[in-house]
């Protein structure tokens, strides 16, 4: 497969995942603020903004700067009279602002651009689905619809993302393209879950069901967790589930395993750098003594996060930017070799 196409596929996977996760987290946060006093609602929204790493937002050129109302203590949120409405406004930005790098609209736009340059590689149904989804998000009335009916609109986004994943699962051949897409998705998913635990762990004091439920709903894990831990309110149990569960597809361990098997299938060499890094991360997590891990959680999570980011870099160096190191006159040229 062309290195450029592989890279586009990888990023399409990352952006798709990021969009879906963001929508889900915004939905869970809004839901949790419905019955809360304004100050509490604002704290939760700020916590979400930290999870999404948008404290210092990256505005796109020539679009009104959003950094100022997405900083850790946004003056707009603090001072305005109708505080509840501002939480809503922040949510709308996180979803619908095309000028905010990381918003749902931005991510779906990027994923569409990636798929557009892959149109010869992907099933037509996949292209049509993302194109239709994107066109809906870009309609002039979208932000207003979101403001007016946030839950139904966020449901629509989630269902659209799930439909995309369904099309990918049921119509894409399990070739390199599929594997790079799944790899991108799972590395991004691992990052998001890791960050969620980072920012939500201190909020869960073991007494508040709401705080626990918000954390778990942010990754659609509430029901699975309730079955596995009989609704234990302990923050440590929630962290253990989200980091280490064997069967939940958004746990960090699960995502790392799935990523590892993609890289293993894609690599030509026995243990290329991205596979080594992934293997270290995965086994470090898998065989960790949880009491030690949880005692030093902030540091452990920070190391995990930087490990996943480093893996993504190594994937790029090994798969997407490898051609320079090959010698054209060596056996690297294999006429008719399958791509």
């Amino acid at each position, binding site marked *: *497969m*062309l*290195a*450029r*196409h*592989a890279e586009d596929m990888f990023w399409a996977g990352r952006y798709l995942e990021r969009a879906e996760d963001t929508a889900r987290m915004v939905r869970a946060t809004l839901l949790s603020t419905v019955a809360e006093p304004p100050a509490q609602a604002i704290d939760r929204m700020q916590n979400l903004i930290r999870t999404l790493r948008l404290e210092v937002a990256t505005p796109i050129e020539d679009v009104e700067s959003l950094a100022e109302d997405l900083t850790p203590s946004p003056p707009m949120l603090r001072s305005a009279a109708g505080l509840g409405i501002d939480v809503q406004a922040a949510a709308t930005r996180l979803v619908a602002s095309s000028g905010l790098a990381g918003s749902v609209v931005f991510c779906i736009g990027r994923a569409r*651009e990636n798929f*557009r*340059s892959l*149109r*010869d*590689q992907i099933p*037509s149904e996949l*292209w*049509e689905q993302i*194109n*239709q989804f994107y*066109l809906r998000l870009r309609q002039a009335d979208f932000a207003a619809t979101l403001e007016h009916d946030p839950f139904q609109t966020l449901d629509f986004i989630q269902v659209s993302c799930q439909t995309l994943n369904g099309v990918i699962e049921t119509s894409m051949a399990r070739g*390199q393209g599929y594997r*790079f897409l799944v790899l991108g998705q799972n590395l991004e998913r691992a990052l998001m879950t890791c960050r969620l635990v980072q920012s939500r762990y201190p909020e869960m004091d073991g007494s508040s069901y709401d705080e626990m439920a918000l954390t778990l709903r942010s990754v659609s894990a509430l029901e699975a967790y309730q079955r596995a831990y009989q609704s234990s309110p302990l923050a440590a149990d929630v962290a253990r589930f989200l980091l280490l569960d064997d069967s939940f597809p958004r746990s960090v361990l699960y995502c790392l395993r799935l990523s590892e098997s993609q890289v293993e299938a*894609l690599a*030509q060499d026995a243990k290329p750098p991205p596979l080594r890094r992934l293997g270290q991360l995965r086994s470090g997590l898998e065989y960790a003594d949880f009491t030690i891990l949880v005692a030093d959680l902030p540091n452990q999570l920070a190391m995990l996060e930087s490990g996943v980011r480093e893996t993504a870099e190594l994937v790029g160096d090994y*798969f*997407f930017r*490898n*051609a320079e190191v*090959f010698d*054209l*006159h060596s056996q*690297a*040229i*294999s*006429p*008719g*070799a399958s*791509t």
Partner: protein
Amino acid sequence: MAAMSGAASFFDEAVDEQGRTRAHYRPVQEWFDRLTLEQVRALEEQRNESFRRQGITFTVYGGDEGTERTWPMDLFPRVIDAEEWAMLERGLIQRVTALNRFLDDIYTGEQAILHDGIVPRRLITSCTGFEREAMNVAVPLGARCLVAGIDLVRDADGAYRVLEDNLRSPSGISYVIENRAAMTKLLPAAFADLAVRSVDHYGRSLLRALRSIAPPACGDDPTVVVLTPGIFNSAYFEHAFLARSMGVELVEGRDLVVDDHVVAMRTTRGLERVDVIYRRIDDHFLDPVVFNPTSTLGVPGLMAAARAGTVSLANSVGNGVGDDKAVYAYVPDMIRYYLGEAPIIPNADTYLLWEDDQRAEVLERLDQLVVKPVAESGGYGIVIGPKATDAELAEARDKILDDPRNWIAQEVVNLSRLPAWAGDHFAPRHIDLRPFVLSGEQTEVIPGGLTRVALREGSLIVNSSQGGGSKDTWVLGSPDQSNQASQS
């Protein structure tokens, strides 16, 4: 203008002189007659939604940053009966065969046609499309023009004429196939009684043609790629469509490297050799080493590889010498010279402005003729005498006198008409036809082609960049012909 709009001066495709629907249009006409206004509007809406969802768009440059527009397809199809198509098919194969012989004669042959004085040598050496870089670069099977798009029109008597040849990178075939796919979904019942010949097999035919020109040394499983300028090119949709329908990689210049005259693409597993490139990048951007040094679209060293015979390019470099509009005037002579046959489809009447007597006559009647630059395509630079202002005519006169070799003049061809939807009713609009001809081991014409329609009342400009639309084109087969098409 007044002289042109007389109804009698146009050929009507669907209606005869007595106002009766022609036999091959009867089922279609009856079908449309039964539709109510609401039904047509619903079909139009369905069509737009479908094209939008699929992203079947083209880019219009200019304005803000180039806009993506959905593809304008008119619902009323063009119909060509089997006998008429058989004649066109023979004529197109004849013409493209002669043009390929001509290109090969010029670039790798003895230039016999110049020695024998059939085509003037100075016409070739003064041609902007003539590329010295392509001299002695051989192409397997002599298929220098692997994909040709030949623009046909019908004059006031209904006779088909060739208006121009497109031998470089003719586009539009993806729309032929998408139009058919859309029509099949929109009007399934309209197909019921007609044996419309299939166009779906184009990808397979193109791949077969491309593989047939692979360098002999590369074995029997050559690697074919499509080379595109990238997603911002107006025809990107088509490039992706073709790569997908052939199942080959769609590469950009930055994906390819040339070393020691071998072309390879950068893959996730290192470099992989490439044998045949269907390139949709213009000659001058193809290789910064020999052409435009500032081009970032191309691949340094590509021409040297082609010359070494390690890679085959389609279409070949330098085909512009065959579709130069002054050279066009000599195509009927080429057919007689190379094939010893009489041309089946005539040219439009053409004047060469570098010939003193012809130029003098043209300058007398500039307001009655169409003036075209010889090396442009896409309808750019054309002056239609009867519709031009005095200032435009004066400007055209100056340009002709300044560089007569760069211009030709043609009699106005009053393009034939066919009903098209005009907001609330069907009204006659002017159309042309671009069939696609594939060369290689065999020469093949895809049934029909792209029918373009000038959607503005009275307009003769059919280019999609200038307010033109398209129509699905139905070639009717006798039952055994449609069988063949579905089996091939």
